[in-house]
């Protein structure tokens, strides 16, 4: 086992107490120290109360997961102490709200520092709202940030009610400094990196490729793509719109694409279900269509603010009929950026239908990311040049050139089976020919993918571990945590499934790691590669894998 090279901070409290903000500020603080950061928000489907926490971990090396065993735990209420009693390291510091927590509730063997937070916050009009500030303040004290640096931080991050904030922070800082001031030494890293979430990366990646319009109906955990693009759309040259339903969303996207606008939509499982009819329409009409499906535990409403990977087969088969489609899932936030751009470009190149499958754990986790912005693909469809236009003219690779209004030519997109001009047909030969044309696009897409990297391979040694999507991060971090050697194989593209890159594994007995109760990814591997996993490690309680715990499971499985 390698020396521990990570530091973990958890702040917990009721929703509405500024927990999320506290976690973000802590992360920003780490990032400003030029370190790598991974921040995971755990919150319930409610607006006030309950129990929320943020776990943010940092390292001098790239870090791909939060760690649940905290070095510093800040508990804004009694429930946070109870919830995280087991989540503190032996040498941890626990800063708690002594106005709420009973001493008897405190875990043994940690350095517990009580601060009368309620009392200290009484200056505020709504004291509950500002408890969160205790989080970054305690952190600042523990890592030896000076009082001045803290004041500056507060001025930057907690502008409203600044004076009261400073007073509150002072009280916390003093109490913590007294017992644990400078307890943890966190080295500076090499470079300051921006922090962003998976959803932000998807939004920006799509923008990079040339996104014009984004349609979405609010649904956790996809909503923040909408929020981000609504907020920054003006600057980015993107229109973000929230219609009456996901059905409207999907059909508007089809309409927008038919006039040449590069559209994208985003939702979670229930909303995606409602979009399938439009997906099929796009399939027949050959409308470029890209949908982001960010999963949460299902079926149905399920557990809205948590994570799961149980929409895989659902995402692979949306819409009735034979439809050329591309489905892919990013493993990291950086990859989310690249992939969103790549997929937007692909669906436009092939006038195909695409699903960018991800999960809450990637969508909403916030990390320091080193993205080469300019490496993003660019949409550039095949356009009709001149002469008579036929929307569905037969083409060797199935891709008929595009033409947009206004034009003197007749442009006929259609949901009916059709002839080359786009007129409805019920004639046997024409029906079969158009199926063939569309199927040729699938073949052409495969050829295209063969020229790209459709599978990531991480490390090379010993045991083969298959994983995909956000679980990739957990697996890589787990291996790092214990210094385990393995070959991690992560198919980024799931449809067409890149068997050509995976030949060598057919007949293998890999370990499979995924977050679904029925092992949907393992099933896909059985189907496509004929592999028989030696072990399928699943987790389906809504929480992402914890690297130390996963490492232990992996160690056992590797044997």
């Amino acid at each position, binding site marked *: 086992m390698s020396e521990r090279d990570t530091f973990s901070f958890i702040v917990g409290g009721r929703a509405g107490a500024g927990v999320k903000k506290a976690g973000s500020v802590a992360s920003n603080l780490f990032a400003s120290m030029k370190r790598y950061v991974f921040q995971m928000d755990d919150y319930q489907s409610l607006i006030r109360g309950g129990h929320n926490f943020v776990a943010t971990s940092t390292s001098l090396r790239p870090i791909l997961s939060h760690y649940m065993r905290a070095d510093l735990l800040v508990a804004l209420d009694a429930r946070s102490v109870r919830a995280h009693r087991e989540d503190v390291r032996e040498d941890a510091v626990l800063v708690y709200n002594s106005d709420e927590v009973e001493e008897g509730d405190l875990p043994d063997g940690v350095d517990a520092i009580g601060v009368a937070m309620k009392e200290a916050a009484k200056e505020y009009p709504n004291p509950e709202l500002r408890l969160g500030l205790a989080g970054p303040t305690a952190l600042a004290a523990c890592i030896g940030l000076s009082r001045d640096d803290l004041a500056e931080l507060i001025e930057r991050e907690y502008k409203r009610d600044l004076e009261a904030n400073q007073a509150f922070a002072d009280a916390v800082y003093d109490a913590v400094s007294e017992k644990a001031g400078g307890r943890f030494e966190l080295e500076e890293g090499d470079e300051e990196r921006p922090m962003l979430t998976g959803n932000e990366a998807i939004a920006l990646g799509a923008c990079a490729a040339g996104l014009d319009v984004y349609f979405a109906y609010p649904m956790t955990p996809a909503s923040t793509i909408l929020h981000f693009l609504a907020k920054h759309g003006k*600057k980015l040259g993107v229109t973000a719109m929230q219609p009456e339903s996901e059905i409207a969303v999907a059909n508007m996207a089809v309409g927008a694409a038919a006039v040449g606008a590069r559209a994208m939509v985003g939702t979670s499982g229930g909303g995606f279900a409602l979009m399938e009819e439009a997906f099929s329409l796009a399939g027949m009409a050959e409308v470029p269509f890209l949908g982001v499906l960010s999963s949460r535990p299902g079926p149905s409403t399920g557990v809205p603010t948590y994570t799961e990977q149980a929409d895989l087969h659902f995402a692979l088969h949306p819409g009735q009929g034979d439809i050329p489609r591309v489905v892919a899932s990013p493993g990291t936030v950086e990859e989310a950026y690249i992939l969103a751009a790549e997929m937007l470009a692909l669906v436009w190149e092939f006038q195909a239908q695409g699903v960018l499958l991800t999960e809450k754990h990637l969508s909403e986790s916030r990390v320091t990311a080193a993205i080469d912005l300019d490496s993003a693909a660019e949409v550039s469809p095949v356009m009709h040049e001149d002469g008579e236009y036929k929307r569905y003219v037969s083409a060797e690779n199935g891709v008929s050139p595009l033409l947009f*209004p206004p034009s003197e030519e007749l442009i006929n997109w259609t949901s009916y089976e059709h002839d080359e001009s786009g007129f409805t047909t019920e004639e046997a030969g024409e029906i079969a020919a158009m199926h063939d044309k569309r199927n040729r696009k699938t073949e052409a897409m495969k050829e295209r993918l063969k020229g790209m990297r459709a599978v990531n391979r991480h490390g090379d040694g010993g045991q083969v571990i298959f994983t995909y999507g956000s679980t990739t991060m957990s697996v890589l971090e787990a291996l790092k945590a214990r210094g385990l050697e393995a070959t991690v194989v992560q198919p980024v593209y799931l449809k067409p499934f890149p068997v050509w890159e995976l030949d060598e594994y057919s007949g293998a007995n890999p370990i499979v790691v995924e977050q679904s109760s029925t092992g949907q990814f393992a099933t896909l591997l059985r189907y496509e590669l004929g592999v028989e996993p030696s072990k399928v490690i699943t987790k389906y309680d809504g929480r992402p894998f914890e690297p130390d715990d996963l490492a232990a499971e992996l160690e056992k499985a590797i044997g």
Partner: protein
Amino acid sequence: MAREFITEVENTWCTGCGNFGIMNAMKKAVGILEDRDIPKSRIFMTAGIGCHAKIFDYMSLSGLYSIHGRAMATAEGMKLGNPGLRIVAFCGDGDALGEGIAHMMHAAKRNSDITVVMHDNGVYALTTGQRGPTSPRGFKGPSTPEGNNEDPWKPLVLMLEAGATFAARGYSGNVEQLAEIVAAAVEHQGFSFVQVLQPSVTFTNYFEEYNEIVTTLEEGPLEFDEALRLARQEEPLPAGVFYRKEKEPYEVSINRGRNPVEDRMRREKRMKAIGDTLGG
């Protein structure tokens, strides 16, 4: 390239179907619009699924033949994507008030700048004559052999209440007037709704009845209250422009005045904006 307005696709509407009148009116409307500086090339259409929707194949206008109930949403996407176009959605009563009523109501609410021409034959014709949202109580169709158990809606009432800024009724038996109405609807900037009384000779052959009770509304557009009162009236059934109001179209404000496809940023500028967003 000059093209005939009517394509060479085989027309399979029943002889005497009211849809012919609508198509003829549309042909004239396009002519009227050309005279008013709205070229045919800037008209982009969509349609639901049903007998009405076959108009898509029969007319030489560009567009996207959508799916049942969604033409309104398709149309909104088109307008939002390129606000420089005039969008016309041909819908059935089943389409627009059954499967797709959510889109109708909300398109009217947000004053999306599209024109909805609703072929109101009071029946799901193409699927062999089932009751629809405007079928009378007692209507016998294959899904209601003992008679429809619902009272019909009055489409103009709903659309006025939902927020339509242009609401009119036409009759497929009066092609000249219908052409003028549709042209005015397309010209109107904002959500335009045209209910067209369209008898289905096969299932709801109301031609005789309509010929008696359909009158011409000479004095329209009216004040909202008056328009609503008239929209409720069952006999006579006036045809004409009931209501019209100026109001900023949704696509102007949501796009902040830009045209997404025409004003697209060049890559360098986009990359810079992304960098800034990430940085800040």
